[in-house]
């Protein structure tokens, strides 16, 4: 007898699980359907197949500009978050120092600070030291938001690695930089890749903080948010939504599978 679940219980839970998955994916499927619907308003009955909305968004210069801005901000801020994350994680996982618990809590605190509060305080900070809002200010905000995720991915990976490998390298005369480059870095590379990916997608999708510190070049989420006020833009926004959601689903799944097989290969 299975002690956790009866036969009926298993059946009920499997059904419930399936229903929840339908609930989670149905809105995305609905967007997919209406992105091909030949009507200005997304409503039933469906009125024929068209690729018009996809054409329209490809030809929309300001939308493409916003995507480009977000890609640049996401790339720079994720590199920043990962570099800082590696440094912080090595300190947290390998070193003993006073105030480590406080340092760790401080580094992870953005996870529990509401974005609206963080956005407001960044706005006030930049305002009081006279920095104009720009792509740079958004990048700063996104580095802070992404850093805890990078640390949460990197620290457990560092703790998995047998530190005697690093000690052996030191004993054989390697400098700490050489040890990092030849031993630690290759071993944590899968974790670095997923930290980078998490930071990139977080930044690319981030609206709340960016809305307080964005300059004249708007990011993709900010463009989307303002486009939602104009009904004539809705169909092409739906088309963009489908593209972005599909790409991010594929990337997320591929990354997870890739990380798992890479960590299996490096299993120590």
């Amino acid at each position, binding site marked *: 007898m299975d002690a956790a679940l009866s036969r009926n219980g298993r059946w009920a839970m499997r059904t419930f699980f399936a229903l929840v998955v339908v609930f989670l994916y149905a809105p995305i499927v609905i967007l997919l359907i209406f992105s091909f619907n030949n009507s200005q308003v997304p409503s039933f009955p469906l009125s024929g197949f068209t690729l018009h909305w996809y054409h329209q968004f490809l030809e929309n210069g300001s939308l493409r500009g916003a995507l480009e801005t977000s890609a640049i901000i996401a790339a720079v801020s994720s590199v920043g978050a990962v570099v800082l994350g590696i440094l912080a994680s090595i300190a947290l996982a390998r070193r003993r120092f006073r105030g480590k618990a406080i340092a760790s809590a401080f580094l992870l605190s953005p996870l529990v600070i509401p974005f*609206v*509060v963080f956005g407001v305080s960044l706005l006030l900070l930049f305002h009081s030291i006279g920095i104009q809002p720009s792509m740079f200010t958004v990048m700063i905000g996104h580095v802070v938001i992404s850093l805890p995720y990078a640390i949460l991915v990197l620290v457990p990976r560092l703790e998995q690695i047998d530190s005697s490998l690093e000690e052996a390298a030191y004993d054989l005369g390697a400098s700490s930089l050489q040890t990092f480059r030849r031993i630690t870095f290759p071993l944590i590379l899968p974790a670095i890749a997923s930290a980078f990916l998490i930071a990139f997608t977080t930044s690319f999708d981030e609206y709340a903080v960016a809305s307080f510190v964005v300059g004249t070049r708007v990011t993709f989420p900010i463009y989307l948010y303002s486009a939602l006020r104009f009904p004539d833009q809705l169909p092409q926004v739906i088309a963009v939504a489908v593209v972005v959601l599909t790409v991010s689903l594929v990337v997320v799944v591929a990354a997870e599978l890739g990380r798992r097989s890479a960590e299996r290969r490096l299993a120590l």
Partner: protein
Amino acid sequence: MLALFSGPHGFTLSAWHDFFHSSIYLGLFWKSVKMSLIVSALVVLAAYPLAYYLALSGTKRKYVLLLVLIAPFLTSYLLRVLAWKVILGDEGVINSFLFWTGLRSSGHPISALLYSRFAVMLVLGYVWLPFVALPIFVSLESLDTRLLEAASDLGASRLQAFRRITLPLSFPGVVAAFLFVFIPTVGEFITPSLVGGTSGYMYGNQIVDLFGTGFPDWETGSVLALFLLGVIAALTAVFSRFLQVRGATG
């Protein structure tokens, strides 16, 4: 945060005084807390059986299924909210479907679907559900199933074993899951501003509006933001042992 006290009159606590004596701001805060509590409770309740199924049913594909469950959370937040705006509107997918099939006469949409408290809570629940299953899954996954076998050998029913063993042992995961939804949703402003209308207006929207272009009042806005931060910091401190992230807190 320095700008907080350096208003036109130098250091003053008048904005704090006004805040604690204003029924509007505190009322709005309680409304947000209530909405957020309901959402968190319902979402945890729904996520528990999902996590239980994945962790304890012995299904071979549990990590694949977990990925299926969590993947939507890792895609665009804004776009998932947008999807619901398309679905719930007066001329949206649900209403137009009802007109089309004749279940409701056209011109009489169910307008409470969008721009309501219901819409905000539905969308927040939708957005956070996948994520919440994760901490519960982790706590159930680490449960030693031999305990359950022992309980059943000693004559306990499955329900008894669940109540006396599984539930208490997974409780930290449940608390963590609850806080992981409650903390971000109580200060939420994007979802209410997109699907909430006036009745779904939340505390976070008030903060944004005080920093907005209409009638900006940065001083009051800062007080509201700091108050929210204080409440959440207190919550985090009280429940910190449930929120401990293994390893990272060394």
